[in-house]
């Protein structure tokens, strides 16, 4: 019995450690906000959201498999939550009743495992009922397989067999054990026989119908004797105790995997509900294979910004099909960083099978998503800061493969513009030649204009716009890099307040 709701052919396992670039990714794309919206305060959901979102998949088939399942979940939110409650009940029952596998002796292991399984059987029956009731409503290959498997594996005969064994294993009529004579005339190879259902067999034997039976009874007060008998019993039930305890473990692990895999979809459902409340659109992105250089959409917005400000935010259109490099220049606080984040976020979400924050979006998958942001909070000296930037870059290069995606935000600017531009140019050039996709936000005119002058078709130039009156639209347009970053504007605006205050005083 396999859950297989995250991969068509294997279980989901959360990586022990996040991928190396995860820390920067979380920081630069404000992913904590995304995780919190998915988790809604549930630590387990948070953990799964982090684990799944950060381990990007490049296998388009897997991503489409998840997209279909996600669509089913978005269409049947109550069934999803009912399904999710089954493993949760198992967990709570176990914790509430201390139904662990206790004891260090086989008899103890056997008894506690039987009680655990009794409890699991009830929940498995519920699971079967959900499958019987709702299977028809689900369209995705993943859920269809899942429900069909439940109906086949957990058929009536199976429940009958399981409850039969669980009853028999309580040994109402004694524990029958076959023993061989071993070295030193000690018993060996203790083997549990199938217990009989009645006591009459012994009477038959006693009447001489079958081979002779000898017996003795341990006196009630002989504690040593009872302990000795328990030891023998333990040898007899050692294997079956293992089988039952492992069965309980397997069921538990099945339910745990179910919980784990459903947790991701539940997180997606939570997020979709939050974004719906903000009237922000979502869509399942159209995916294409790595290297096909597809990336276009409408209404692409930074969901984390929307969730943080609790307000609808401006979306951008993007048409970067066939582009290897997107250079973004323009006005300060003109929406460059927000735009860069929305591209990164869409990519990260698309590559775990989620919907993306856009009205419409299509993208090719990439082999890895990396961010290289100038760290504003860094207070080290200028040279130290540049050194730090380069060392982070060097790490990224260690992890990069062709068709990776790197988002740069004001990188390599912690030095003079000529040096910074030259280094930036060399790095970008090298990455492009290794078939890496690059998004680069910069106010370094030399860097941007250098690429503009080459006039390559695989480079897209975007500019943060400002209106004639100097106010910003937060929309990006295609356009040639301009030599200033409109810092004057900001200066003017900031100092304008002073000016007016000053004039008022006067």
């Amino acid at each position, binding site marked *: 019995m396999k859950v297989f709701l995250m991969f068509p052919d294997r279980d989901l396992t959360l990586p022990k450690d996040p991928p190396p670039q995860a820390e920067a990714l979380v920081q630069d794309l404000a992913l904590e906000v995304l995780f919190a919206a998915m988790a809604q305060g549930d630590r387990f959901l948070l953990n799964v959201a982090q684990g799944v979102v950060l381990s990007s998949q490049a296998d388009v088939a897997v991503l489409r498999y998840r997209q279909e399942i996600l669509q089913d979940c978005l269409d049947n939110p109550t069934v999803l939550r009912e399904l999710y409650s089954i493993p949760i009940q198992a967990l709570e029952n176990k914790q509430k009743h201390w139904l662990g596998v206790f004891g*260090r002796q086989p008899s103890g292991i056997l008894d506690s495992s039987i009680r655990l399984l009794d409890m699991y059987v009830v929940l498995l029956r519920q699971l079967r009922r959900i499958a019987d009731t709702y299977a028809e409503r689900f369209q995705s290959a993943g859920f269809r397989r899942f429900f069909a498997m439940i109906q086949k594996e957990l058929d009536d005969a*199976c429940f009958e067999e399981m409850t039969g064994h669980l009853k028999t294993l309580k040994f109402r009529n*004694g524990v029958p054990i076959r*023993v061989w004579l071993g070295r030193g*005339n000690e*018993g060996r190879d203790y083997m549990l026989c*199938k217990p009989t259902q009645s006591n009459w067999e012994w009477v038959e034997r006693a009447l001489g119908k079958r081979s002779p039976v000898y017996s003795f009874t341990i006196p009630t007060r002989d504690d040593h004797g009872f302990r000795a*008998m328990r030891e023998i019993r333990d040898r007899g039930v050692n294997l079956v105790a*293992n089988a039952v305890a492992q*069965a309980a473990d397997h069921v538990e692990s099945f339910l745990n995997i179910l919980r784990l895999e459903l947790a991701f979809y539940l997180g997606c459902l939570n997020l979709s509900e939050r974004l719906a409340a903000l009237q922000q659109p979502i869509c399942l992105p159209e995916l294409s294979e790595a290297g096909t250089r597809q990336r276009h959409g409408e209404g692409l917005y930074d969901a984390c910004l929307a969730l943080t400000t609790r307000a609808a935010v401006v979306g951008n259109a993007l048409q970067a099909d066939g582009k290897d490099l997107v250079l973004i220049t323009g006005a300060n606080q003109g929406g460059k960083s927000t735009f860069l984040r929305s591209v990164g976020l869409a990519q990260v979400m698309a590559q775990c099978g989620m919907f993306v924050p856009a009205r419409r979006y299509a993208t090719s998958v990439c082999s890895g998503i990396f961010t290289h942001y100038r760290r504003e909070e860094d207070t080290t000296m200028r040279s130290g800061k540049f050194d730090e930037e380069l060392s982070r870059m060097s790490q990224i290069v260690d992890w990069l493969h062709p068709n990776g995606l790197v988002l740069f935000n004001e990188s390599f600017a912690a030095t003079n513009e000529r040096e910074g531009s030259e280094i930036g140019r060399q790095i970008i050039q090298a990455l492009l030649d290794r078939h890496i996709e690059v998004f680069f936000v910069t106010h370094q005119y030399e860097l941007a204009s250098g690429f503009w002058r080459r006039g390559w078709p695989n480079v897209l130039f975007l500019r943060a716009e400002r209106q004639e009156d100097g106010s910003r639209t937060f929309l990006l347009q295609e356009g040639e890099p301009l030599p200033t970053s409109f810092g004057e504007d900001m200066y003017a605006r900031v100092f304008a307040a002073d000016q007016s205050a000053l004039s008022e005083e006067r």
Partner: protein
Amino acid sequence: MANFQSILFDDEIAPAQSVGQPAFFGDLNLDQVVDAITAPKQDYELKPFFYQLPQRLETIFYRHEVMRDLDNEAMMTAIHDFAEQMVIARRYLRLVEKLYDPHHKRGWFLEAALVYCQAVLTLQQRLDAVSFTARGWQAFIEYLREYVASIQFQTLLNEARSVRQSLDEVSYCLTLHNNGTVRVRRHEDESDYSVDVTQTFARFQQGAVKDYRLNLQYSGMNHIEAQILELVVRLFPHPFAELERFCQQHPDFMDERIETFDREVQFYVAYLQFIADMRQKGLPFCYPEMTQQRGDSFVEQGFDLALAYQLLYRSTPTVCNDFFLQGDERVLVVTGPNQGGKTTFARMFGQVHYLARLGCLLPGRRARLFFFDQLFTHFEREEDMRNLRGKLHDDLLRIHEILTQATPNSLIILNEIFASTTLKDALFLSQEIMRRVSELDLQGVWVTFMDELATYNEKTVSMLSTVDADNPAERTFRILRRPADGLAYALSLAEKHRLTYQQIQERIQP
């Protein structure tokens, strides 16, 4: 019967009384060596073999031959396997002593006999495939063949196997009831219920889970099992009757000479195993020539076995040294800086002689060594320096005792004696002792800081612990034949006060 007595002694009668550890063992660190050799073989009580020197020169060659033939993987494995089986057989017999239930006792007695028979048979098969040059091995295999072919052994073997087979066929079914009732009957081809249960739950298989099977160590028999066994005996009377008859007919089934061999051969096995890793590391070992002539011995690349063992798993190399005594030469006088390997050299001298005398491979490339009668050592020990006057007195008493017992065929090893008295006294006393050593014509080593002893007379040979010419603070641990240069004493004094270049560097932090 073949003429085989012992793998350790040919014609020589093995000493009945085991002797204690020789007095010089501590000084030469041979105690550490023998501890390390015998540690993995506690049960055999091998130490007396290492304490007792054979009386005859011929016995040394007898042992060399035995060790040579044993010194290969096939033989070592054969003996190892045999020994392991014998250990098990003896453990079972000890167990029988402790047991109470008669069927249980007899069961283990039978096991002991079976293991013993198999040990003997396997050993014979393995040794039959080898051709020996050693007289010891030739005699032993001849004895072993005769023993295995004997009616006594064949009867033991056949009866043990037949009883075992009848018992193997016994199988019964128990039913344990919670009220304390235990029922026993013959089995009726019941099947394993845990297989059914496993099958039913197999559908939930999710990959690796914990293994709950317990390794239930149920050797022994509690009183309920004993009661059950009584009922099993009633269900299957014949095999148990056979077993009882077997035990009555073979009370002491182990052959005495086989048992003695089993213990004695471990002398060689333990030693070869002990040196195996050192040989692997490239340290040389050799069988020495033996000489009964004074002034006719040498060792090439000898080393201190105890030190080499300590350094085995470290990168520090073991330093080898040579020495020889020829013509009138009797005493190697070793001077030079402290920590330069002088004491190690003295120990090496003692060890190679002792191991040669014992009939072992010794730590060195090539050697001819003297067949001494007694070995005496006297090493200065720092911890004894509380009462200097009393100490000097004790030193003199001890040396007097040595010189009284020593014969011209004895060896003497002195290390820094009289170091605690004034130089003048020390020189006077040392020269007096040297005169007596010389008169007795004793051979040996004398480690001292007094250069004067190195040139005492034609019987003394000066050897010097040396330093690296480029870096005087670097020790080479090489001891070379070279005249004493006087520098050693000054250096050793400086060293004593921790005032050498390197020490001052270390003491004063920059």
